[in-house]
């Protein structure tokens, strides 16, 4: 078990910021930590990384107690915080070399170039970081988090500021790390598309408590959550031939907004429609599934 958190509580002054957080992450897993703003995600991350000591509960990260062994822990983890600050007067290569030095790692020019290429910053090393865009800074932050070849990667909004291609590139890097190098990844993000593509497990925190945790497929199945799609059909088509597992939510001209039950494979639903003679020109997924699960769970918590 890379990360195991049981009944974590944290008070800041008299204010209970974390009331009961639970989290487990295995080697090679990508865990999505979700929750509304102010739910306690960043505070949980600060406890996991040893920046804050818990008030109660048990926290084990790579077999270490972050509160008592922070330095040992920092040698083995990589962190990309939401605000990735750098020393703007340095170049990317000088900065990475300096960071590596803090880990007592000496990197050659070729190794630094390889690190930068991995995150899509090839050819950018001589320029000072001050000239970098937000997306480039995000990539550099990821390179910094990977500098010590960590066993556990903690990422807070890692695709912030990236265009769709950039996001996909980062996803590929993360998937490669988890699948082929056994790196555990704790991903803190609001982008459910990222969670959908990357994560195998999620935990949803609200008001300082874990309200839902587990494998995504199991959670979606348990919640009977449906997945939403948008179909563009040929003019004149009518929705009377929709199969039983597909529900029409709304209709605007040639666009049909439908829901497909999470129990079935959507491809089979489209096959049924096509077999029924419906002419479909475009199919777009509109979320649902995870998004609906998230909305339902957090709204229920707020109402409670």
């Amino acid at each position, binding site marked *: 078990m890379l990360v195991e958190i049981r009944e974590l509580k944290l008070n800041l002054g008299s204010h209970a910021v974390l009331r009961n957080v639970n989290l487990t992450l295995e080697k090679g897993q990508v865990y999505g930590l979700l929750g509304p703003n102010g739910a306690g995600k960043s505070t949980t991350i*600060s406890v996991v*990384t040893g*920046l*804050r000591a818990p008030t109660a509960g048990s926290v084990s990260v790579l077999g270490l107690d972050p509160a008592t062994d922070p*330095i*040992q822990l*920092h*040698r083995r*983890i990589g*962190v990309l*915080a939401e*605000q*990735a*600050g*750098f*020393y*703007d*007067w*340095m170049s990317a290569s000088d900065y990475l070399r*300096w*960071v590596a*030095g*803090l*880990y007592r790692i000496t990197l050659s020019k070729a190794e630094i170039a390889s690190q930068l290429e991995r995150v899509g910053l090839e050819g950018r090393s001589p320029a000072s970081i001050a000239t970098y865009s937000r997306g480039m800074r995000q990539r550099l932050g990821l390179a*910094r988090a990977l500098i010590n070849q960590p066993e556990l990667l903690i990422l807070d909004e890692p695709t912030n500021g990236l265009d769709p291609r950039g996001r996909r590139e980062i996803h590929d890097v993360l998937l490669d790390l988890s699948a082929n190098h056994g790196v555990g990844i704790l991903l803190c993000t609001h982008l459910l598309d990222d969670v959908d593509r990357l994560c195998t497990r999620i935990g949803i925190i609200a008001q300082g408590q874990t309200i839902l945790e587990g494998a995504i497929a199991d959670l979606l199945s348990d919640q009977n959550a449906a997945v939403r799609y948008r179909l563009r059909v040929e003019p004149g088509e009518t929705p009377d031939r929709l199969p039983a597992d597909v529900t029409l939510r709304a209709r605007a001209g040639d666009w049909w907004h439908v829901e497909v039950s999470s129990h079935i494979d959507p491809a089979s639903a489209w096959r049924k429609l096509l077999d029924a003679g419906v002419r479909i020109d475009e199919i777009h997924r509109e979320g649902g599934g995870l998004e609906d699960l998230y909305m339902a769970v957090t709204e229920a918590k707020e109402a409670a």
Partner: protein
Amino acid sequence: MNPIALIARKESGELLMSGRGLAWLLALSVIMSVLSLLLVSNTELSLLDNAQVVYMVMGTVTALGALLAVVLGSDTVAGERERGSLMPLMLAPVTPSQIVFGKMGGQVAGWAVMYLLSLPYVWAVGSSGQNLAQAVVYLALFGTPVVLGFGFLGIGLSARLRSVRSALLTSLITLMLLASPLLLGPSLRQSTIGKFFDAVNPFSAAVNTFDSVVIDSQPLAMQFTRLAVTLVWLALTTAFAIRSVRKMEI
């Protein structure tokens, strides 16, 4: 290279290689140049006034060094926090003690640069040779603990107050307070309170020593009490900085 040296090198690099740091050094050198150019027009100065000129330059270097140290020190923790670069540093395998010692190393480098930049000015105005060698030595001996003390005070305040503006304001007020006896003039410093303040004030200790050595040609043995005042100041501010950084939260 160990983390302390790495952080110190980064801090001093920021002074010498960043636009902000170079701008500060340029501003301070312009002040020194203006002071020197004001003197060059007066060729009727007596030998006494020349010693006073050297003394004046030494006092100015110490004051400007303290000002630079306060500006750099106030930014060193709170500024990193505001720019988002403090958290990556705290998430590296580096202890708070190593962070503070590294930043102190940066202060030492900053003063070293300031001191070296000032030597040509001291040499240029000290042409008569009255105690020029002593001026160079005593500027290092007394200027160093006073300036570094202000730098370490800035570091400590920067860690505690979590805002560059607050830390800078508090540090500057402290600097003004300690420099005030010299602005008030000798008559006010003759009162009981004035004498006491003069006796425990590290800034006064340094400047009065410069007066004694450069103008009155007194030996080192007569300056030990004042040297002790500056060293106590340095020790107290060092302890304050270390304690403040160790206790700070992200």
